[in-house]
């Protein structure tokens, strides 16, 4: 797997989390900038999904393919689900949901890293 993409996604999660916490403290609903951040995160996750599958196909490592791919797919679904839930709740609840979604992505990224290196 590509370490830099992994790093960029985690950094993106961090940026999104800070933005969301700031507006959560201000008691604001999710802003356009949050949706944009989530969209960028989503694009990165989709790139990772493709890249991860290609890397998996070409690797000598003993990576659990089913687990790895299901993590890639679920991570890519989390921001979409979070954004949809957040749209339905235009208050700080929606902002909290986005934060949960970003946290989910970050957690899954960490696990993805573990799964990949466990096969080494």
């Amino acid at each position, binding site marked *: 797997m590509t370490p830099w993409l992994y790093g960029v996604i985690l950094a993106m999660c961090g940026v999104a989390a800070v933005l969301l916490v700031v507006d959560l403290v201000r008691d604001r609903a999710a802003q356009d900038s949050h949706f944009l951040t989530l969209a960028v995160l989503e694009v990165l996750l989709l790139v990772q999904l493709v890249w991860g599958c290609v890397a998996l196909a070409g690797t000598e490592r003993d990576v659990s393919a089913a687990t790895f791919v299901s993590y890639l797919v679920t991570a890519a679904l989390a921001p979409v689900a979070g954004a949809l*839930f957040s749209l339905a709740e235009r208050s700080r609840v929606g902002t909290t949901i986005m934060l949960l979604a970003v946290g989910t992505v970050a957690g899954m990224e960490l696990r993805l890293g573990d799964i990949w290196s466990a096969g080494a």
Partner: protein
Amino acid sequence: MPRPGPSQELSTGWGRALVFGYGVFAVAATGRSAVQLGMHADRAPLAYSLSLLAAVIYLLATTCLLLGGRTGWRLAGVAVLIELVGVLSVGTLSYLATDLFPDRTVWSHFGQGYAFLPLVLPFAGLAWLRHTRPRAAGH
């Protein structure tokens, strides 16, 4: 006020955040137990059965919160209570009787592998159910 049924309240407002959280854990626990039971069921039958139980409980809680209504509220309460007992007992046992759990479950070490959210969720769930309890009963 034309008596809003509790079905509306359960899955809106903070309930929606709860549905999202439970939904994530339903997926996580289902995935984990499917992989564990499918690939090496004989390695840790107890831990993996508990993973499956956790998955069922999370699915039940998510569904009941979404469905709402009096029955949904009650069933959600049962699910959240089982979840609370589960995370507390498995969490404690995973520290005391390590040989019982050679492999992790969602509830091991009070959900340490999941940022302790499995420990927080049932309390959040109970608080929300208390907040949305059907108020018809006057006793």
